[in-house]
């Protein structure tokens, strides 16, 4: 799979199923393992929950997919101020997003606006039988 950039924007009412299945498909195409795809989908649910708490109307994300790597940039959350990882759920003080993604950058910028950038990688390749 060559490097691909994919954009999706969904209203909050349908964001969870739409974005979840979208990123799962992209992650699978990128060759992430099933375990990592689970992490990606759970991260999206977490982000949608953060959007709901911020009363954001829609969630937009850009996926950059490369072999065994998926980057997601979520900008809509920042419509109501900069995104802090502490806004999301945490376990024993550790943000869930930080547990799920390899790297989390809450100070990323997209189109001049603050954004949240998540990176997921796999050491192994997803194998289809």
């Amino acid at each position: 799979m060559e490097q691909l950039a994919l954009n999706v924007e969904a209203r909050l009412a349908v964001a969870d199923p739409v974005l979840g299945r979208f990123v799962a498909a992209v992650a699978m195409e990128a060759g992430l393992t099933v375990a990592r795809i689970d992490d990606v989908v759970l991260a999206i649910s977490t982000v949608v929950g953060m959007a709901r708490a911020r009363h954001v109307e829609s969630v937009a994300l850009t996926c950059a997919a490369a072999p065994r790597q998926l980057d997601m940039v979520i900008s809509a959350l920042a419509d109501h101020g900069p995104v802090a990882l502490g806004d999301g759920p945490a376990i024993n003080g550790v943000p869930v997003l930080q547990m799920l993604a390899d790297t989390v950058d809450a100070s990323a910028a997209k189109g001049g606006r603050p954004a949240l950038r998540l990176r997921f990688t796999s050491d192994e390749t997803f194998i289809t039988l």
Partner: protein
Amino acid sequence: MKPQENLVRIRVPACDSGVVAVRQALAGLCDAVARQRADDVRVAVTEACDGVCRFAVLNTLADQDIDVEAVLSDTALTVIVRGAGAGLPTTGSTSRRVRASLMGAVADQMTVVPRTAKQGTETRLTFFLDHGVPLR
């Protein structure tokens, strides 16, 4: 959610991976608002997106995108697929005719709007929702 709301907007590269992502995203949308039409939406949208991809490949167009919008009204889900290409002629290759027939069969309404050569084609697929819209 208000009627006539633009629910989903997607822009992906015109390639197989892009089509897969669009199909899954719209399957997720159908899970939320139009479960009874999920199979029809998946088939028709896949064909429309695949048409854009085939045009890009046949004409060796690099960096072509597929734009997809889904709009929900009180009675229908409308999916608009835009991409480069000359549209779906009623005559021409067998695969194009089959593609148009298939989309026309599974969608309740299908409109193909050829735009300028530079703008490509817009395929508008409407799926009526028999039992209202089960919004969450």
